[in-house]
């Protein structure tokens, strides 16, 4: 459990650095450190599927963010812009904390009762789907409707991004 708290402290420190630092490129590197810490946290909590996805998506986001900032003329955030950035971040942090507190206090205690729903999947998953990776059998068989919704969201997002970023027909 102690390594979990160490990773948590590392991630909080990296996030504070990402908000506070002046240079945008250094800030992106700090955001990447938060993502890597989260990936290692998933590994220590025995969720390799999530760890792989987190690591890979983090790399892709880092590439896109660096490409978006590296050719900008102004890479320093100063004065009024900095004030607005801190104000917006603080607003969203407070909003998130209030909403999270009001929804999380109704949840059962962490890890108790042990695997109320997952017990059935662990017992019957292999016999009913034939897949030895139970995560895949849940997301593509037991809960395939959720995956269909997720795929629809991703499809709509990518179509929207391509429509905004198109070159032909742009004045």
């Amino acid at each position, binding site marked *: 459990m102690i390594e979990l708290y160490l990773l948590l402290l590392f991630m909080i420190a990296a996030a504070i650095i990402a908000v506070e630092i002046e240079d945008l490129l250094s800030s992106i590197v700090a955001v990447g450190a938060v993502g890597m810490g989260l990936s290692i946290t998933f590994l220590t909590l025995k969720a*390799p*599927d999530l*760890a*792989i*996805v987190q690591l*890979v*998506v983090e*790399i*892709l986001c880092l*590439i*896109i963010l660096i*490409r*978006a900032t590296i*050719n900008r003329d102004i890479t320093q955030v100063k004065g009024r812009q900095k004030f607005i950035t801190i104000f917006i971040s603080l607003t969203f942090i407070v909003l998130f904390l209030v909403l999270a507190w009001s929804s999380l206090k109704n949840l059962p205690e962490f890890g108790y009762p042990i695997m109320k729903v997952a017990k059935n999947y662990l017992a019957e998953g*292999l016999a009913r*789907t*034939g*897949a*030895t*990776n139970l*995560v*895949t*059998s849940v*997301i*593509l*068989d037991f809960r*395939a*409707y959720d*995956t*269909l919704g997720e*795929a629809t969201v*991703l*499809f709509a997002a*990518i179509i929207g*991004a*391509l429509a905004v*970023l*198109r*070159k032909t027909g*742009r004045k």
Partner: protein
Amino acid sequence: MSNKPIKSNEKGMTLIVKTITRLTIGLILLFGIYIVLHGHLSPGGGFAGGVIIALSFIHLMLAFGKEVALKKLSQSMASFFESLGAIIFISIAVLGFLGGYFFLNFLNKGEAFHLFSAGIIPLANIAICFKVGAGLYAVLLGLVLLKTGGKE
């Protein structure tokens, strides 16, 4: 297209990066395909494998410039593959009506720990891999093409 920054951008990165890319890019692509095909046996799956495959193409684009990557897989082909993945996924779901209901695992379950097992799950993994990989590659390509377009 006679601007200098665009021209130096097209040439890509240094010789060191290009050589390392030439050595590793096949392995990255192969690892992504492995993650997708073994999604029902080991950690991984369609989403992670698709992003790894997209990253191998993005790696090519960063090292050699966008022309080389566009020659391998153009933006219209990427859009085509994305839509194809979505259609395959929804077709697998609709084919479940053969046995009774939506998303029924209608194929033979097979033997556990074998590559050809678990019915529709590997097929759905491949469909999601097409969707995610081609979609993310197309978005990054859109960003890159828009940037050079805006400079003119």
